[in-house]
């Protein structure tokens, strides 16, 4: 039940209409973008509800219950509520900066999906620098955080924005170094190549001891910090006194930040599934089903962390990243390099 065939067929139909090639490609890209966008919008909707249901399960309560059967319409209700809220811009705010911050956050989190393989041959564009592109684009969120903090013209928002920017940047580094270990082994930056080098389950990078699990754990921790989730959610926590960067945002702009967080969570899970859990590889079921299963599994792990652990203080967070994760990630990288070079565990 591979669905790549449908897209190939549609592309051929489009090419057969006789338009010039550049137009054909342009239309194909736009259509692909719209499909990915639509898919991600639905995923964000599902994730918001799923988070509340998972938290309710862990806390032995019901979660959303009245809006639709077992609350499936809750996110739609939330979206409608946010849409009809007044869009307030503070008088003293820096208007262009204030306006563009959520746009950049939103765009960055969608732009990453150009290179993520949803299934066999289901990738918008198989760049040969795939993972590098992804890691670069995810850094855009730092700019949007700083812009949000600065544009609000509020000393607490500025402090919050700078703190979260510091947090994201600090955890980017161990994440990249952990991913490097996998890249060293795969020998290529292209996402499709990485998936194809994990054809059998014992080849998945998570199982390639000893560097695989360590790289995976570092990646998970760094990804939790990237997406501002507990135990690293200082910027969004209400119990912290210095408010986060999005304190002045309301209505649709706030909805953009909110959605961007959930889509980001899906992104890092998708990348984690691709790099460590074998992407879309798996027997019996179609490849895109495997991809979804693995990604949602990782999303569940992130949610599980959120509802179990308390949060770290800011200085403890930074100390953890620079003094513990980064040296560990470097040591792991050296180990992976040596393993590849010497041919051990190289199946």
């Amino acid at each position, binding site marked *: 039940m591979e669905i790549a065939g449908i897209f190939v067929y549609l592309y051929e139909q489009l090419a057969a209409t006789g338009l010039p090639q550049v137009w054909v490609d342009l239309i194909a890209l736009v259509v692909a973008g719209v499909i990915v966008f639509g898919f991600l919008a639905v995923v964000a909707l599902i994730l918001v509800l799923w988070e509340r249901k998972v*938290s309710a399960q*862990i*806390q*032995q*309560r019901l979660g959303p219950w009245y809006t639709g059967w077992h609350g499936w319409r809750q996110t739609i209700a939330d979206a409608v509520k946010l849409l009809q809220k007044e869009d307030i811009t503070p008088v003293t705010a820096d208007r262009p900066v204030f306006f563009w911050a959520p746009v950049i956050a939103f765009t960055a989190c969608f732009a990453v999906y150009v290179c993520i393989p949803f299934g066999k041959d289901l990738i918008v564009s198989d760049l040969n620098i795939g993972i590098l592109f992804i890691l670069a684009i995810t850094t855009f969120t730092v700019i949007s955080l700083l812009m949000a903090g600065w544009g609000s013209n509020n000393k607490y928002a500025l402090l919050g924005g700078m703190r979260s920017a510091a947090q994201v940047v600090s955890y980017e580094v161990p994440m990249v170094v952990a991913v490097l270990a996998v890249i060293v082994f795969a020998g290529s930056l292209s996402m499709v190549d990485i998936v194809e080098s994990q054809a059998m389950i014992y080849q998945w990078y998570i199982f390639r001891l000893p560097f695989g699990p360590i790289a995976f754990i570092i990646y998970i921790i760094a990804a939790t910090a990237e997406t501002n989730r*507990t*135990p690293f*959610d*200082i910027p969004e*926590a*209400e*119990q*912290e*006194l*210095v408010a986060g960067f999005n304190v002045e945002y309301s209505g649709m702009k706030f909805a953009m930040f909110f959605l961007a967080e959930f889509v980001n969570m899906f992104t890092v899970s998708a990348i984690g599934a691709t790099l460590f859990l074998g992407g879309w590889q798996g027997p019996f079921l179609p490849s895109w089903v495997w991809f979804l299963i693995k990604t949602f599994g990782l999303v569940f792990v992130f949610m599980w962390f*959120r*509802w*179990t*652990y*308390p*949060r*770290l*203080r*800011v*200085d*403890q967070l930074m100390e953890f990243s620079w003094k513990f994760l980064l040296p560990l990630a470097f040591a792991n990288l050296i180990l992976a390099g040596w393993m590849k070079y010497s041919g051990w565990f190289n199946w």
Partner: protein
Amino acid sequence: MTEGLRTEEFQVNMGPHHPSTHGVCRFILTMDGEVIISAEPVIGYLHRALEKICENRTYVQCIPVMDRFEYCTSMSCNQVFALATEKLAGMEVSERAEYLRVIMLELNRIASHLIWYGTTALDLGALTPFLWAFREREDVLDLFEMTCGQRLTYNYIRIGGVARDIPPEFIPKCMEFLDKFDAKVDDYEAILTENPIFVARNKDIGVLTPEMAVAYGVSGPSLRASGVRHDLRKDDPYSIYDRFKFNIPVRHNGDCLDRYYIRIQEMRESAKIVRQAIEQMPKEGDVTKRISANFKPPKGEVYSRIENSRGEMGVYVQSTGDTKKPLRVKMRGGSYNQLQVMPELVKGHKIADVVAIMASLDIIMPEVDR
């Protein structure tokens, strides 16, 4: 490089409404960057003039007013006033009533510590233990509701005894609750006590030395965490506490983590006391004393105190001997002293620690503001 940079202190207002769920308490924090230089508490947002109200109510009517003095441990408030009035009037309380009082007091202590546990975890970002603690609290409140009809302000422990006897389904339900309670406390400990994140947030934070604790009049679990072994149930036994075997947990570091350990242990000890009380309680007996509407205790003044979950709770009652209403009722709560010591404890810590310290001291504002 930093000589040319000018830094200045700034003030952050931790306003009366804030997400740390301890009531309406305001702090004006003066900070140098992330570090706190001084903290000034501003109180009075929950002042309801309870002491003045009591001056215009008869002794029996004062009991529901005392309920609201500290509504998380309403039974203790009733008890302390009843003790004071009984001392003034020279009344005896029957055996069964004493045992019922102890059962209710200790169950209330468990309920109060469950609130403390839930809100501490919530303040530090672990959102799940709050719900679990309140699930257990529902069971305790069901027990109270079946006995006296209310879930928060009980008006149950009265002058001379208790309001009514327990219904027959109380004891089986209570035993059912106690049987599963220990396993639940194990759950609470598994998720927080050894968690490295929780320990990192609480260890060596807000260290209260024993000298400072005694000087400020801190009492209760916060005092015992600093190494001072003082519990009114053992040192100045009131009611029939000298008949029960229980331990007083004491720790010596005085930081937030020790206060946490002590309260978790106290929950277990309270469960032990309730079990012993249920076993030893006489099967029959009257538990109520009908106080006439003209009840006038003889002239005198008395200060009676009990060990509340937040420290020493005391009430000073002065009666003139020829009126139905007390001349003066002064209430003393443990949270007031612990709030006084907070500015000392937060000096030098970061702003995120203020919340952790306040949660670990277990300050609630109705006791402070009355």
